[in-house]
């Protein structure tokens, strides 16, 4: 991949020092709980907040444990490039990992994994957005992962959907993302980066990671990605666990939207006679 000449890039062949040390062990020690003390089907604490970018039509910030994602939505605006006329609007998604977000430093230019992620997020959001309400216009969604501590793709899906909702883009439903890591018999919901599926360290067997994007009130799956090798039964089971995980995050997202509406409409605030809190902390 060619470098960006406008920026001063680090040496191409530099390595972070941890490459030379002992490789981190990946999973839990034998005997039940995970490294951070969660049960197998527990989510990390989720924090959601809307309206974080004042210039954008809508924006959202999400934390899942240490994974931090910010999304900004611009539009609907006229399609800038000269293209054929469509009665349907167009949705554009760009997912980017900040260069310092992962253990290994990333480049400024979108790499293959980010392009793949952008497409997954786009296809996760498309079924939810009423695109026929925006003829010949487009909505841009920019998602930046500030810190990747596992399940970044799932967080990106949720955060982007919240941003769209904050922008007032008409939608059939929000989209909630959730990941599951399958390791032999064990199934870990919402894996952290040390629990995530890394093909280079995995031995053969039932190993993989599933990410699902769910339209929770319509009960439709809009994104489904599986990496690794799984038996059919295990794969189906993992998808089911993901769906229940999504259903766990959904109420937090709803609460966040309600409180952001209260913030934005002061008359509602007076009627209810109480101050709303910023975002919600929740754990299932």
């Amino acid at each position, binding site marked *: 991949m060619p470098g960006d000449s406008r920026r001063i890039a680090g040496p191409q062949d530099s*390595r972070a020092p941890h*490459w030379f040390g002992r490789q981190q062990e990946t999973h839990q020690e034998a005997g039940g709980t995970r490294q951070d003390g969660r049960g197998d089907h527990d989510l990390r604490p989720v924090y959601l907040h809307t309206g974080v970018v004042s210039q954008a039509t809508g924006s959202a910030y999400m934390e899942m444990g240490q994974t931090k994602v910010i999304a900004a939505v611009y539009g609907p605006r006229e399609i800038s490039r000269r293209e054929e006329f469509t009665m349907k609007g167009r949705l554009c998604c760009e997912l980017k990992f900040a260069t310092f977000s992962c253990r290994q430093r990333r480049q400024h230019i979108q790499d*293959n994994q980010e*392009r*793949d992620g952008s*497409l*997954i997020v786009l*296809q996760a959001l*498309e*079924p*939810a957005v009423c695109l026929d309400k925006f003829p010949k216009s487009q909505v841009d969604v920019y998602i930046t992962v500030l810190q990747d501590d596992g399940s970044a793709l799932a967080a990106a899906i949720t955060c982007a959907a919240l941003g769209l909702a904050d922008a007032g883009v008409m939608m059939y439903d929000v989209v909630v993302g959730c990941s599951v890591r399958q390791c032999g018999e064990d199934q870990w919901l919402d894996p952290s980066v040390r629990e995530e599926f890394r*093909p*280079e360290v*995995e*031995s*053969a*067997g039932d*190993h*993989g990671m*599933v990410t699902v994007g769910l*339209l929770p009130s*319509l*009960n*439709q*799956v*809009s*994104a*489904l*990605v*599986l*990496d*690794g*090798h*799984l*038996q*059919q039964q295990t*794969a*189906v089971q993992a*998808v*089911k666990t993901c*769906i229940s995980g999504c259903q766990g995050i959904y109420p937090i997202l709803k609460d966040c939207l309600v409180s952001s509406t209260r913030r934005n409409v002061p008359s509602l605030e007076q009627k209810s006679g109480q101050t709303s809190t910023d975002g919600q902390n929740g754990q299932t």
Partner: protein
Amino acid sequence: MSSTLGVLSDAERLFIVHGVQDDLRSDGRACEDYRHVEVETDVVSNTSGSARLRLGNTDILVGVKAEMGEPDPGRPKEGKLEFFVDCSANASPEFEGRGGEELAIEVSNALQRIFNSKSTLDLTALCIIPGGQCWVLFVDVLVLECGGNLFDAVSLAVKAALYNTRIPTVIVTADDEGQQEIELSDDPYDVKRLDVDNVPLIVTLSKIGHRHVVDASWEEELCSLARLTVGVTQKGTIAGLNKEGSGSLDPESIYEMIESGKKVGVVLNSRLKEALEKEENSKREKVGFLG
């Protein structure tokens, strides 16, 4: 993606959807039938392995080139596999210039996903000197004609080409000062082959109406909003899964699709293996491209 390849009138669309509902598609197939597949290996002499595959009207040519390079620092004892997909303008005028790039990235990501596991291909067999030299296999996919179901056709062709790949044997010797030297065998028949038994094939299931079909033609692809690409190995393991398209799917229908994907994929794997072994053992003249 393939919506760029043409348009369909409402009447045609309705005809296809109703046909699928009654398990009879416009070319006479049932919902879980593949089109006729033709495969031929060793078609390009300058490669280490090559295959040409025709699935209905979809035409794929794959060339594998083995070169020597440095392994990734994180995986010093393994060789590398690189996929490049080229949607040539032959297949569709929309692919001209950078037009095919988006589709090409989608296909190469799908390939990357199904090969993204240690149990797929033994990459340690491609190691020459741990941490120093390894074989890098460049798998170049050329799409010559696009008649629907590109993903399945590409994965079939890639597996056939990898089956056909022959990597020359090299001998590593150390001289007195401990310098390692690589020596290539003089005998052109002194080669090693890859074990492709665990390489998965992609089965794409397109949701049309309330049912799903495998191996959709391009007309059928236009009628479907959501597709599921399922990687299936010979033993029936699910290796990679991705939902594509702008539609969403019911969880129940996803489970059904995974099941029928697995069923079809296992058969497809064994048929391909049979065909490749039969071709290798027969002394038949090469047909070439216009045969």
